[in-house]
Structures are given as structure tokens and as C-alpha cells.
């Protein structure tokens, strides 16, 4: 599969992941604003629970990728990266930037 196709399908896949992952974010959001106890529960889970950390990292990763691919899309709407070579380069840059952001998010969470 050409790199441009990989970037495109990942944009779709991360969109679906985000749609499902929103339930998790909404739950944490709800609990965090409900009461002091709820807030402490969320903070504690984010700081100590491996599974919670892993899930939030996954959702944040999907968000970061989707964000970068979305920005690339806006550039394409304005007429950039539409030739084969520039399109390929933009796709590779998309993967690289998203990768760096995802690693940074992992460092932040752990």
C-alpha cells in the first residue's frame, strides 16, 4: 500500500477509535466534575492504574494522529501536496510528526 493510502486509512481508523474512546473521556470528564471524590478518583486512576494509562494513551494517540492528518487535509484543501512527490512527502511527514507527538504523550502520561 502506498504511504499516502496508509495515512488516509489511519485517519479513518483513528476517527472510529475516537468515536468509541469518547465514551471513556466523557466518563472521566463526568466523574472529575461531579465532586472532590470523583476528581480524586480520576487523578488517582490516571496516575497509578496501568490499564487506565494505557487506554488514555491510546485515545490521546488517536486524537494526535487524527489532528495531524486533519491539518494536512486542510493544507490539501488549499492546494498544497497534491502532486505525487509532495503528496508522498507530506504523508511521510504526517506519520513522523504524529509518531513524535504520540511518544511525547506517552512520556507525559508515564
Amino acid at each position: 500500500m502506498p504511504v499516502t493510502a496508509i495515512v488516509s486509512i489511519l485517519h479513518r481508523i483513528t476517527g472510529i477509535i475516537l468515536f468509541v474512546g469518547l465514551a471513556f473521556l466523557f466518563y472521566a470528564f463526568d466523574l472529575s466534575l461531579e465532586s472532590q471524590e470523583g476528581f480524586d478518583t480520576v487523578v488517582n486512576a490516571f496516575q497509578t492504574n496501568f490499564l487506565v494509562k494505557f487506554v488514555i494513551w491510546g485515545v490521546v494517540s488517536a486524537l494526535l494522529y487524527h489532528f495531524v492528518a486533519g491539518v494536512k487535509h486542510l493544507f490539501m484543501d488549499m492546494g498544497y501536496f497534491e502532486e505525487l512527490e509532495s503528496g508522498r512527502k507530506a504523508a511521510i511527514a504526517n506519520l513522523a510528526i504524529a509518531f513524535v507527538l504520540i511518544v511525547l504523550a506517552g512520556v507525559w502520561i508515564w
Partner: protein
Amino acid sequence: MVTQITSFGRSGLYDWMMQRVSAVVLSLYTVFIIGYLLVNPELTYEQWSALFEATWMRVFSLMVLLSIGMHSWIGLWSISTDYIKATGARFFFQSLCGFVMFVYVVWGVQVLWGL
């Protein structure tokens, strides 16, 4: 010509535009929330709840909730029309997504206004 009745605005161009408008709202919110959490590593409940009690934040957040509904409808609609060829299955999938989006919006409103 067949007129689409399940797309968001019944016009490809309108959906195209709304997808981008909602994307900008969602990306601004993403940058804001991540930035806020980064500059407030010792966030307290008082700070956090005060943030969401501010009117501007409720306006911003409600805009985001509606953008989530719009953006995910247009996105999932595009994906489902590409891959689910059977009309019944596609309609079921789109209905399910629509229901979930509606739940998200109502849930979000409830959290924001603490009902």
C-alpha cells in the same frame, strides 16, 4: 440523480464545509485542554470546576459537543457509505452512530450544567 437523505446537510459541499468548520473548533479545544493540563500539573478540583463554571468555557464546550456530533456524523457517514453496501446494514450502523452521538451531546450538557 439520487438525492442523499442520510448525509448531514443533504449536500456534499455543505458537509465538506461543516466538516472543516467543526474540525477547527475541535482542534482549538484540543490544543486548549492539553495546554491547560500541561501548564497546571498540580490541578485541583476547585480550579478544574471553576474553569467549567465560567460562561465562556461553557460556550466553548457546548460548541465542541455540537461539533463532535456534526464531525462524527459526517465522518462515519462517509466511512459507512464506502464500506457497507447493504442498505439495511448501513442504515442500522448509521442509526446506531446517530444514537450514540445524541447520547454524547446530552451527557456533555448534563456534565457541564451539573444537572
